[in-house]
């Protein structure tokens, strides 16, 4: 983003300790370039959970994404996946580190709207950090959730992506401190 771009705040969703999914809806279609920031944990006694995103809440296997995560004391986790969602980051249970453990990320989205100037598949990338089940802070960092809602896998063409649904795959709820914020760039 060029310095001086005017970034518009689209909206924020926040956990409440009971919701397993959070949805940012009514995403404007007059831009194709968005920024998402987030920090999250989930309500669970012991396990971390993957935070995943779906476009227009489509739960079909129409997403392909990659990861490159550097873990503390371990080799990078590198992979490519075709799933019914795109994984952004594993978030820790709220019992970890006396409830202070979090994961966080910075993500970019492109081509959410079907403007003729950029007809590619809706796509995203995320730079992540945080914790999973381990006791230390920041056991990993890297890129994850870098992928697309793929037309060749059946993602509908000619349809704007106007909602992003974030879900914890382990079934727990977002803590009240979990916050996801979407910004829009004024131009594509």
């Amino acid at each position, binding site marked *: 983003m060029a310095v001086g771009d005017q*970034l518009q705040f689209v909206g924020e969703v926040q956990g409440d300790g009971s919701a397993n999914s959070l949805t940012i809806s009514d995403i404007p279609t007059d831009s194709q370039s968005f920024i998402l*920031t987030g*920090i999250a944990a989930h309500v669970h006694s012991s396990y971390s959970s993957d935070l995943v995103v779906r476009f227009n809440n489509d739960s079909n296997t129409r997403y392909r994404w990659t990861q*490159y995560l550097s873990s503390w004391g371990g080799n990078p986790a590198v992979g490519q996946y075709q799933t019914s969602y795109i994984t952004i980051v594993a978030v820790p249970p709220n019992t970890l580190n006396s409830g202070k453990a*979090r994961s966080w990320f*910075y993500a970019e989205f492109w081509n959410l709207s079907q403007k003729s100037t950029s007809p590619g598949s809706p796509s995203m990338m995320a730079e992540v950090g945080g*914790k999973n089940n381990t006791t230390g802070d920041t056991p990993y960092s890297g*890129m994850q959730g870098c992928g697309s809602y793929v037309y060749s896998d059946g993602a509908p063409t000619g349809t704007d992506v106007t909602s992003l649904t974030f879900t914890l795959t382990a079934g727990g709820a977002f803590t009240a401190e979990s916050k996801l914020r979407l*910004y829009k760039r004024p131009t594509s």
Partner: protein
Amino acid sequence: MPTGYESGKTWSPIGAQPAVSTSAASRVWTMNEVASYVSAGTWPPVLEFVFDPIATHTFDGSTASYTFTSIPQTYADLRLITKTAVSGSHSNDYHVAVQINGDTGSNYRYYYSYIYSYSTQSSGGSGASRWLVGMNFGSTTLPYTCIMDMPDYSSSDNVPAFTSRYGQTSLDTGTNAYNRTGWASGSFEGTIAAVTSLTVGTMGYGSSNYPNGTTATLYGMGTAS
């Protein structure tokens, strides 16, 4: 009834309104008027323009760090962009390091990776006295940039944390002068508090001051909830 509207003016409805049959209305907002009453209904959200430069510091070559103080607590997220100037006089690379709230204790944990000479390298620190958010800057020919984001920095409930990405060329010459690109993340392990000040500097690596012309700009994004 509230006052502050005028009668007999030509008006145009804003948004969905019942059909009208006359060009005159009994209640019209005037310029610079301040509302005293609001509708009981749900108002649409204000479309905010929020990527605000809070402050910029330009290094003159004589200092190794700078502290942004009194950071407004009104934004949702912070972004720090550090652009290092070219340097032909430095004998060592230098990092972009960050401390928060003037804390120099062993309270910083971070991890980084970068691509270098066709391979990846990663490492980190725990119990450190600062985060390393950008690695091995110091090109003699090219300026480089480090972009750091801190989500929910003004919260007293969430751990101060960051992600960053950066590109750089080391001061090495010849076959060692590979470009690098990388990223990092980190969290704060001290007492959780809102981030009100932020220090950016080399902080002990390379014993270097930032070259003259290096800039650090702090931006605010969004609105704190």
